[in-house]
């Protein structure tokens, strides 16, 4: 935009029409600008992770017009602009057109650059990784912790790669804090490994993505302190109902419409599961995790508090329990608990976990049409 002609030399306006028109244009444009700013930010805040999976470099998608509370409307066009060589970082151009309420003709356009980062290094160093105490109580198949890499038996060919790499069964900061009652099955390479370098950040920072960023971008946000009794896949008319708060995907039926739905679930406090719970994806628990019913989960579980498995738990993938900032709280394994490391199950969940944010430094550009 250049303004090379000095206005000092121009003729004086001969009436009120031009200033009035300028006034109207400015005000209406500001209305439109407010709309498209909100629109652009909303598009990032509710970033649809399917975009990250379905758009190849150079591909674009045009979203439908959306309404704003003040009657304005906006439309976004998303273009993937990276070359696809970095598996953990993609760039998108979000072009947003904003218009004020019907009856006023105006339009402004802005471009927002968005970086979408995938979780890197989140999981899993073991079937269970923890910082504090661990008490295992059970005998035989009643309690099993296995770091032997496994492809979930229910999953057919093509879902998982052939290569498997065994990991430790239990990876903990101080193995003196492991208390075993009975004769549980502990497997892995090795079954128990001490790593004094484990620190709090291991449970909160995963490559370029933090726990908080991931929680903020979660597909499902649940309050803490409540008891959930029925977590199950929800299908309607042959389609997975992804909006269902208690639909955490279906890892048990490869033919289910919810098999490819792996949400990020964030619980802002303690999570108590009783009854039946089936799901997959990434489960983030700010507080304690307590299972007293049946819990069958494929993917990655991160609990910032402590965990207590009293019921029948099968986690296939990996689990990390920070055990609180102050190590010394307890993580219990008892009842019928199986923690099975699976690189495939974990990687599949992680590949669906993305965080979108405006590009650092300068992401905003207004297009002058």
């Amino acid at each position, binding site marked *: 935009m250049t*303004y090379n002609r000095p206005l*000092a030399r121009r003729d004086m306006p001969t009436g*009120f029409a031009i200033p009035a028109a*300028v*006034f109207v244009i400015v005000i209406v444009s500001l209305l439109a600008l407010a709309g498209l*700013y909100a629109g652009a930010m909303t598009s990032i805040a509710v970033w649809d992770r399917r975009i990250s999976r379905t758009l190849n470099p*150079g591909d674009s998608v045009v979203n439908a017009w959306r309404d704003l509370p003040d009657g304005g409307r906006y439309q976004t066009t998303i273009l993937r602009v990276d*070359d696809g*060589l970095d598996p953990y970082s993609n760039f998108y151009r979000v072009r947003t057109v904003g218009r004020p309420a019907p009856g006023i003709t105006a339009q402004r356009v802005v471009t927002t650059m968005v970086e979408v980062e995938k979780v890197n290094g989140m999981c899993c160093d073991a079937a269970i990784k923890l910082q504090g105490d661990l008490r295992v109580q059970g005998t035989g198949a009643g309690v099993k912790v296995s770091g032997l890499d496994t492809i979930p038996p229910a999953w057919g060919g093509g879902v998982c790669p052939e290569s498997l790499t065994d990991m430790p069964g239990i990876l903990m900061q101080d193995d003196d804090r492991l208390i075993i009652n009975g004769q549980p099955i502990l497997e892995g390479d090795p079954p128990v490994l001490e790593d004094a370098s484990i620190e709090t950040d291991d449970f909160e920072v995963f490559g370029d993505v933090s726990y908080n960023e991931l929680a903020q971008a979660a597909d499902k946000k649940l309050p803490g302190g409540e008891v959930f009794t029925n977590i199950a896949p929800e299908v309607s008319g042959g389609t997975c109902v992804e909006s269902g708060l208690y639909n955490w995907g279906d890892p048990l039926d490869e033919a289910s419409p919810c098999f490819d739905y792996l949400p990020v679930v964030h619980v802002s406090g303690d999570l108590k599961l009783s009854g039946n719970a089936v799901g997959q994806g990434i489960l983030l628990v700010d507080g304690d995790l307590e299972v007293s019913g049946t819990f069958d989960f494929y993917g990655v579980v991160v609990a910032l508090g402590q965990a207590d498995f009293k019921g029948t738990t099968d986690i296939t993938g990996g689990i990390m329990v920070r055990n609180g900032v102050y190590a010394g709280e307890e993580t219990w394994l008892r009842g019928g608990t199986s923690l099975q490391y699976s690189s495939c199950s974990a990687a599949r969940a992680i590949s669906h976990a993305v965080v979108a944010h405006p590009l650092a430094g300068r992401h905003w550009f207004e297009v002058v049409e």
Partner: protein
Amino acid sequence: MPRIGLRQQGGFTMAEMIVVIILGSVVAGALYKVLITQERLYTSERVAAVRHDALRLSATILSADLMEASSSENDFIELEDDELSLRSPVGFGIVCGVDSVSRKISAIGAEGRFSDPAGDSLLIFRADGWLVRAAQVALPVVEAGPGCAYAGGPEAQYTVKVDGDITGVPVGAPIRAFHRWTYRLEEDRGAWWLARDDGTVTHLLAGPFTGDGSGLSFVYLDENGQVTDDPNRLVRLDLTLVSQVPGGIEKRDTLTATVRLRNQ
């Protein structure tokens, strides 16, 4: 015998003439007064329109530049009460292909200009920070550029040769062309105008404004709402413009605006 006498002649009496003249004078006087009143009103409206025009245009220009500037990325060079130097955006594009050996970049989504002769420079995104480079020359797309790294996607719109290393610039990185401008008021022909200059050329943009020091003023605020003179802590800026048409017209108009930087 016929009677001979003076013929009765048509015409106005002196009294009638006096009445007509008086009435005509009254009407003419009234008309003159109406015309004078309208002329004054028209002049007043016209001058007000000029003042409003100057305020709106200046606020639009300054707001547009300020919204896109990034204080954390050193886009603000100098903060003064009555003048401001910054990197003003003049172009935008997205890297779709990089040849770091020949230092050429192909781009899509081109907006604005990328001109070295005009004194523009480039900001190019890289993971470790934005590179500041001179744009040596903008080439037509047909002249050898790396092209776009997309299979079946959009094709390159232009190629720009860059002065300096561009190793590590990823495909998908935004490029922003910018020009260093200083905004302040300049006097020209007895009036004060919003002007910008880069040390070489000065553009008068809008006006007139008051010349007593109140015509253009800035207040710079940090994230806590405290006044700051640190260009890297700037988050919000309060702008005040006071317009006044010279020639003895005392009336002034004031516009205040708050601009929050969007590129943080």
